[in-house]
């Protein structure tokens, strides 16, 4: 079985400050990890993924995430937050094998960037 935990339902940060949205995972086997963002009344949009290789992954809109195998974490980060980054963020995991490559999503973290 695979699972994802996003321990914070809500994260508030001031514009211009660095932001971190936390994610930890549990899988049997090698994890493939994803971050998605959801704006109001829209579907999820892909931000970045970790498959293999460099532990620091860079994605869209200046976001990056660090894969930490020993801590089973994949935290999303951005050096300087924008008000427009305010949205719902989802972490997702799947194992490297399996025909359908099913994703398991976390419960989501609402990020609010304050002007």
């Amino acid at each position: 079985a695979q699972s994802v935990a996003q321990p914070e339902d809500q994260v508030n940060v001031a514009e211009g400050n660095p932001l971190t949205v936390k994610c930890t995972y549990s899988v049997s086997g090698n994890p493939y990890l994803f971050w998605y963002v959801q704006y109001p009344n829209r579907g999820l949009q892909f931000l970045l993924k970790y498959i293999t290789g460099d532990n620091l992954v860079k994605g869209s809109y200046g976001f990056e995430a660090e894969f930490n195998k020993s801590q089973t974490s994949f935290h999303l980060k951005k050096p300087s937050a924008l008000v427009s980054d305010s949205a719902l963020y989802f972490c997702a995991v799947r194992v490297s094998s399996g025909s359908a490559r099913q994703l398991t999503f976390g419960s989501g973290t609402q990020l609010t960037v304050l002007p």
Partner: protein
Amino acid sequence: NAGVTQTPKFRVLKTGQSMTLLCAQDMNHEYMYWYRQDPGMGLRLIHYSVGEGTTAKGEVPDGYNVSRLKKQNFLLGLESAAPSQTSVYFCASRGAGNQPQHFGDGTRLSIL
């Protein structure tokens, strides 16, 4: 590019009614998925398909049926709607390999 298109966008049903949600993708993707999104629960997989003519159960399949008669379309059916099926439904598709899933904008379904 249209990507993934879901119809309808909104619907209100009475308990016991039936309906079909349509998902269409124009990216020639093999894999398609139906999720439901409920507050505080993230997305839960209802059914999925690994190719035309195939379907399989996900995490929460009860009360739903699906069909994939054409590669570009994935239909989700509710035979006898229940209030517990009030939710936002998302369709997604994915290409081969490690490509990410692409999502539609959802169908907001209320069952009274």
